[in-house]
């Protein structure tokens, strides 16, 4: 079975985002970018399924500017077999991404598509579900465990209040939650080997998909700042404050 793993290049999660002074977005010039953390978990899960003999081939996919090649090389260094980059300089929304991925799924005929549950830049949490709608496949979102058996996959999902398990017919869509696995680091020899792995370059036009954005960003602002607080010296003073707040009598 073939597994597709879409990955996104995002502002590194350790970097504090800075809003541009003109209110048009986040300043991404000269800041560290890396693979979306949830996508690393998706790549790792695909590799583990290959190591178990469930998957035969892993195809990593990214949509974005040329620099997204680096993100795909990381996926290849972790263990993906080949990569597809759909180059676009324009902003692409989850709906457009899902349409492109649907076109690739039609071409590649995978058994599973594993995505991160959300990208830490736009925080949308939509692409996997949208792709599932377009393919008509079952969706196992926010997965903390994935178990393929025959022509079905059992997915344990993190839900408010606990966990639930669903069984999906293959092919299916899975989106990863944080506790699914601990992604591996790419070793230096594997980083070198990844340079020789195939990476196809495409454009959205190759798939005949309209990815024009439906949403316009009117402005981007800093959230309201909290006013500076006070430090108290001991527990008694803290209790005094709690009394003022009306938390304790």
């Amino acid at each position, binding site marked *: 079975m073939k597994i597709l793993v879409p990955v996104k290049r995002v502002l590194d999660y350790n970097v504090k*985002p800075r809003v541009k002074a003109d209110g048009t977005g986040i300043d991404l010039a000269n800041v560290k970018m890396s693979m979306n953390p949830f996508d690393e978990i998706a790549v790792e899960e695909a590799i583990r399924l290959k190591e178990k003999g469930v998957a035969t081939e892993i195809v990593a996919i990214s949509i974005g500017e040329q620099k997204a090649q680096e993100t795909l090389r990381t996926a290849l260094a972790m263990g993906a077999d080949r990569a597809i980059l759909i180059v676009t300089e324009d902003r692409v929304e989850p709906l457009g991404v899902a349409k492109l991925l649907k076109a690739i799924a039609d071409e590649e005929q995978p058994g599973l598509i594993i995505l991160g549950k959300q990208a830490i830049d736009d925080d949308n949490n939509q692409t996997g*579900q949208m792709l599932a709608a377009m393919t008509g496949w079952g969706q196992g979102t926010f997965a903390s465990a994935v178990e393929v058996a025959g022509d079905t996959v059992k997915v344990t999902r993190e839900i408010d209040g606990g966990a*639930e398990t669903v069984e999906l017919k293959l092919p299916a869509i899975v989106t990863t939650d944080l506790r699914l696995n601990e992604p591996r680091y790419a070793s230096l020899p594997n980083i070198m080997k990844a340079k020789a792995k195939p990476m196809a370059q495409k454009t959205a036009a190759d798939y005949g998909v309209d990815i024009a954005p439906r949403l316009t960003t009117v402005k981007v602002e800093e959230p309201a700042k909290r006013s500076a607080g006070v430090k108290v010296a001991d527990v008694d003073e803290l209790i005094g404050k709690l009394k003022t707040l009306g938390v304790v009598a």
Partner: protein
Amino acid sequence: MKTLVWVEHDGAAVKDATLSAVTAASQLGEIHLLVAGQGVGAVADAAARIAGVGKVHVADDAAYAHALAENIAPLVAELMGHHDAFVVPSTSTGKNIAPRVAALLDVMQISDILSVEGDATFTRPIYAGNAIATVKSSDAKLVLTVRGTAFAKAATEGGSGTIEAVGSTGDKGVSTFVSSEIAKSERPELTSAKIIVSGGRALQNSENFTTIIEPLADKLGAGVGASRAAVDAGYVPNDYQVGQTGKIVAPEVYIAIGISGAIQHLAGMKDSKTIIAINKDEDAPIFQVADIGLVGDLFKIVPELTSKL
């Protein structure tokens, strides 16, 4: 504008998250509700009493028993033939279903809205709440998920909605529910608690959570939360997690104990009215957002605090 609001329920009662979504929907126009599930008569009756509600569409069928998105989304897409907006609370169920509906309608969803600025203009947090984007939709229909802590809850009484049964769109046959494990808790639910006591990695183990954090929470009648570090270390179950990838809370008082205050955690609690931090590291980022800070050893401070309350 006719809006259709997804009613989040547990089979017996309407969940609070729905009430915030109703308030958001009321800023758009006429409010219709959708109650889907199996044996949901009582839920539908309760939903019809929510203030401001017009019609309550009830889809009672085994196919909807566990809110599987594969079966629910086609039902909603059909109802959207005569509604202009689908409004969903940002719960795990809501987040699972709404994008599937949006794609069936070929529209872009707007996730986690914080405010309604106009007919098709909304604000929403991006980059873990480090920026607020104002976005305008050009789509014919809207699909919105609503951040519960950003909207007041609609009154649960005073409405007189009319209940109307809708036909089932059936089981799509691609997914089945197997089982669920719900963590039991006597304490207030995290997302609706007025006070939250939250612990981090500094607690060192789950016993300390039980002996230090929980007694304080019980004394205050508070909900118990945790940082991702505490959850990953196995001190508490994952549904305690407060943060970008866990629950978003905005209680009256949030007490962060042994939590450094990483970006990811702050995204889940920085809209709390008063933040109190107890941490031995006076340079911890949590003190930059805390209204009241106490620098010191939590193993001494918290038991002393609990005993003096």
